[in-house]
């Protein structure tokens, strides 16, 4: 991977944030090059396990971005995403991952500048943290750390 040592993954919804990132490009807004964007129909499609999988496979930061509350193309997908991802972000430390390495945000199709700022800010947050070391028991002292169990429901639905 190019653009420095760290690897960042962005899960973007097709309708708002992906279009926002397109707009940042159309407006030629310079951004750090560590981000790799994955296009999805909706942040509601983002399984928290997918985020954990990305960390497990070597991502040093994961950013999820969707439509602003109320603007979801599918009416309410981002509300579900919000619940799932909020819970996930609180769980990060438990998994031995610094909470700053995971972020979710809402960026509309017209907010190219905001996307550029978000990527820049996120990259600058992760750079000083360096590579994520999960194999060595996690970045935090946590003797009970276990990797995410595959195949179970996302936490949000298990209310």
């Amino acid at each position, binding site marked *: *991977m*190019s*653009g420095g040592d760290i*690897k960042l*993954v962005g899960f973007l919804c*097709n309708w708002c944030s*992906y*279009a926002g*990132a*397109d*707009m*940042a*490009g*159309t407006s*030629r*807004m*310079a*951004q750090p*090059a560590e981000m*790799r*964007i*994955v*296009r*999805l*129909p*909706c942040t*509601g*499609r*983002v*399984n*928290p396990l*997918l985020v954990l*999988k*990305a960390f497990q*496979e*070597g*991502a040093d930061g994961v950013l999820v971005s969707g439509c602003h509350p*109320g603007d979801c*193309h*599918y*009416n*309410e*997908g981002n509300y*579900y995403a919000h619940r*799932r991802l909020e819970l996930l972000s609180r769980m990060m430390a438990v998994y031995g991952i610094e909470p700053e390495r995971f972020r979710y945000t809402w960026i509309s199709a017209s907010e190219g500048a905001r996307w*550029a700022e978000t990527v820049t800010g996120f990259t600058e947050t992760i750079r000083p943290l360096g590579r994520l070391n999960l194999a060595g028991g996690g970045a935090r002292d946590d003797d009970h750390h276990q990797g995410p169990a595959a*195949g*179970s*429901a*996302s936490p949000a*639905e298990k209310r």
Partner: protein
Amino acid sequence: MRIGVFVCQCGTNIAATVSTERVASAAMALRDVVHAESIQYTCSDPGQRTVIAAAHKYALDRVVIAACSPRMHETTFQRTMAQAGINPFMMEMVNIREHCSWIHSDMEVATEKAIDLVSMGVAKVRGQTPLFSSHVPVVSEVLIIGGGVAGIQAALDIADAGMPVTLVERGPTIGGNMARLDKTFPTLDCSSCILTPRMVEVKHHENIRLMVNSEVEQVRGYIGNFEVDIRKKATCVDEEKCTGCQICEQKCPSEAPDEFNAGVGETKAISIAFPQAVPLVASLRKEYCRLYIKGKCGICKKVCPADAVDYEQEDELHTEKFGAIVVATGYELFDWRQAYPHYGGGLYPDVITSIQYERMLSASGPTGGHIQRPSDGAEPKEIVFLSCVGSRDESIGRPLCCKVGCMYIAKQAILTREHIPDSRTYVFYMDVRAGGKGYDEFYRRAQKEAGAVYLRGRVGKIYPRGGKLVVMGADTLVGENVEVEADLVVLATGIDAAAGAGSLAQRLNIPYDQYGFLSESHPKLRPVETTTGGIFLAGACQGPKDIPETVAQASAAAAKVIVLLSHDELETSPMIAEVNHMRCIGCFKCREVCPYHAIEEQGLRDGRRVAVVIESLCQGCGLCTVACPPSVISLRGYTDNQLIEEVTAVLR
């Protein structure tokens, strides 16, 4: 598996910062890639021909195109695939322009990133399977909700195209707010002279079925195949028998508020809304009727020469099928009284709303076209108009512009001078918004010909003094406080969506805003569509509009409906959710989260109850895939495996 990778140079748009040759040669090293090349303009005709030729030459079954945003050219290249004999969904676009060459300047960095992105695209397309659109039959009948000028226009346009239309109106007559207007700006056309012929046309059109006193209760189904429950409310009058003779109204002893006339004057419990009502049929309002309040009367039944009065009448519930729905529920005026206690909050009878004033201006109105002070019936000489009451007022949480206030104030000022030549009119305004053909000229006419005095500032207080109303405001252009002693004050009140628009939107599963205005799918490019396929918007239900705009949008919605229903079948996107029935545990968590009610329960032969996706309803958001506890729902084109492969392609 034989994958071809095509790296677009986009002239210099990509090639200036990404070495497309290097990207192509790096792609050749990826698993299952049998061909990779760089093309100058892939989307151009020669570019597409190059892709098709390579597909044939190398017997490709999957293609990755590294170029601009898929939001730009995904459809283009899907068509190219079809021409090349490859399933259109076996193509993945990789965005190396907006997300790479345009945002990085270092050739080395950008090229390496582009190689990463291509390997992600290759990893994803490897997991792709051919997908096929399905077809659903379409019902050719159209439902229009709301019988104002928008609903009338849409109904006539669609019916003229030969499609059967059902026009559902909540009130006893069609015509909507426009029927209450005296004149229209900027031409001063008589409103009912231009509207009532259209209303009659609706009544007599062979393709239109008119249902008044009716409301939409439930909506099921999906584009092309809606099933709608419509409740026709009992009015105690047989619509077929009633001749509109109004004898019942003349004899009825129960007074009732006159909603058509905005509370100016009274009507009877049994009445027709106005003389040109369509249908011209009386209806009875039980809440004001002596028979229902005191248990004794029945005069209307006795006097009716057509034997049309029927106290036993009950609501009727109709269930009908429609292919498309046009929502044209219109607007109502903001109730200003709570929000403006400093204008008396309704305590002063001579502070009225513009629609009340409009009814007084109308020759067929309750005052026979005479402007009268409600307090004493005298003819007012000093009349003050206040713009933006409930509009553009952050202090009461209503920042929206009503869009028509400035113009109808100008109209009413001009008409006032015609009705009372020795009157003086004052207009307190925020800004005069007169953008429209002939609008600014019209507003100037109000000043020059009608002598209206325009004062820029909001009114702070209205209070009574010696039989007059003191209007305390500011002229912010001069920087001074202004006081006008008025005989009558007319408030240009703001506009809200019609009452109940929000709950109707919920039944239709379409979004709406805090004022109840229904949301269009895209503010610029899809202004009459909603985010639910097959449901369209017309008129002020979508936001404040004047008549020309409303009519234009109604015709636009009609055109969209006609396009939709011109096909016997609809093609549906195959990128939707799919349940693996073998592993479904029947918990139906998917059904709980589905925004489109696209999951239904089905029994299998072994007795298990499983979830099934209704293909024509599913919009492919993927919410259910995450909610599924055993993870047995997959979203075609975005399966778990595909996403994991895409992500891990560059991480491992």
